[in-house]
């Protein structure tokens, strides 16, 4: 029987929730890396035992952790227990936590400053890894989205990281600015049908696409309109919160923007709004049903300053038409006095026949539905605020 494993990153550590395929009873293990912020943890699609973790701290910076046994044991890449940590000459054997912006001639000397909240230019300064996206084909290859916005890649299982500096070298780089949570590169989507195509999203710059494996990038924000910007339809500056894609149809993208739920049918070349009857089109998460490419999920949040569900009712909204015609899913979710938030990284779907949907809240609950969203249960409660949720099916 298949085993389901939910990877939960929180403000104060990581947790792993496990169940059989019925998804009725859950075991909780953790906290791992207690006391540290876990922005994201994700398993390799080709080796589910390989899990990568972004462990960060305002005090002590960025740590990358890795497990090769499905989360039972962890190590920093390059530091397996018992290994020497230095060469015979005394030099460090790894640089797994080092994310150095590329300033070289070979890297194209990308722009060294970006726009700050007050309109001044500030130098790029590494703060943390927001998102880790393992390769679809190689467990040693992972992409990392970081703050201040940039894309890094490892090809040695996280031992060392190199910036794909063509992104930050985009001609609009000096106009990128931080969102309220910082200038993070938070979404990385690898096209399963085109190994050279990657989508990324940055708050607050927008969406970018490469068709040459990261060397050059295009801003793909046509159709986005953000009333908080001097030019609402500018090429960049949009606060995109999340993008989702169904692997069978990679040319169709769904987006939860700061305000507005959007859809693109042409790989991001243009976007149309599909918010329709949502009680609020502000929100953070968006995801796609594992077997129905036109079935998508969002969780409306009241507004950009009131980060909680409208009317104190925690409702997932489902569209079976790829946007528009939204229906509220409420069974098992609190329908009064609920004022949690659901952060952008905190929703995931599993691939079992009856697709499971999962999301975590800033109140420390992880809710799950084993039937595509019709019925929900809290599979764990009272964790620290949840930053990220990912799910794995283990055979």
């Amino acid at each position, binding site marked *: 029987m298949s085993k389901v494993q939910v990877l939960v990153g929180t403000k104060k550590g990581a947790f792993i929730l496990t169940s059989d395929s019925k998804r009725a009873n859950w075991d909780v293990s953790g906290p791992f890396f207690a*006391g540290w912020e876990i922005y994201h943890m994700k398993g390799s699609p080709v080796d589910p035992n390989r899990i990568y973790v972004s462990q960060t701290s305002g005090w002590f910076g960025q740590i990358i952790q890795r497990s090769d046994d499905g989360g039972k044991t962890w190590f920093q890449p390059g530091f397996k227990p018992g290994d020497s940590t230095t060469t015979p000459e005394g030099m460090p054997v790894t640089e797994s936590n080092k994310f150095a912006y590329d300033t070289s001639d070979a890297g194209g000397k990308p722009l060294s400053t970006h726009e700050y909240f007050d309109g001044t230019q500030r130098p790029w300064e590494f703060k943390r890894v927001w998102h880790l996206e393992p390769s679809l084909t190689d467990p040693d290859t992972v992409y990392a989205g970081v703050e201040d916005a940039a894309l890094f890649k490892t090809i040695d299982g996280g031992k060392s990281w190199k910036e794909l500096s063509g992104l930050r070298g985009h001609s609009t780089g000096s106009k990128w600015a931080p969102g309220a949570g910082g200038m993070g590169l938070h979404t990385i989507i690898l096209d399963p049908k085109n190994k050279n195509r990657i989508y990324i999203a940055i708050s607050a710059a927008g969406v970018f696409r490469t068709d040459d494996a990261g060397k050059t990038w295009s801003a793909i924000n046509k159709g986005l309109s953000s009333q908080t910007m001097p030019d609402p339809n500018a090429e960049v500056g949009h606060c995109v919160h999340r993008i989702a894609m169904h692997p069978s149809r990679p040319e169709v993208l769904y987006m939860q923007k700061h305000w507005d739920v959007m859809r693109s049918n042409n790989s991001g070349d243009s976007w149309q709004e599909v918010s329709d009857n949502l009680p609020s089109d502000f929100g953070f998460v968006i995801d796609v049903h594992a077997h129905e490419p036109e079935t998508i999920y969002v969780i409306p949040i009241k507004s950009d300053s009131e980060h909680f569900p409208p009317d104190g009712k925690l409702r997932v909204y489902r569209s079976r038409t790829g946007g528009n015609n939204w229906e509220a899913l409420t069974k098992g979710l609190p329908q009064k006095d609920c004022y949690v938030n659901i952060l952008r990284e905190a929703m995931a779907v599993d691939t079992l026949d009856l697709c499971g949907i999962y999301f975590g809240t800033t109140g420390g609950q992880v809710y799950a539905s084993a039937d595509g969203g019709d019925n929900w249960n809290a599979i764990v409660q009272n964790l620290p605020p949840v930053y990220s949720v990912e799910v794995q099916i283990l055979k």
Partner: protein
Amino acid sequence: MIRIVLPYHLRNLAKINSEVQLEVSGDITTHTILNALEARYPMLAGTIRDHITQERRPYVRYYACGEDLSLEPPDAQLPPQIISGEEPFVILGAIAGG
């Protein structure tokens, strides 16, 4: 032998339970102590000072002999009690909310 006291989270990262004792050659300064510490425990690189600039991270402080040395030049000679091992070089995480 130089003695170094690390904060809880950094002891966990380095997988050590008590203070660190290191041989440090040449001048005994914050800079040379941290170089030796990171060479022995490379997983600590970037946690106390920035990987690139080598600047002390904002919420990390250095103490020795009851004095706050955080703002002293990193190449300044440390007190004789640190050099002799009589007193430890203390690295602390600043107390801050959250």
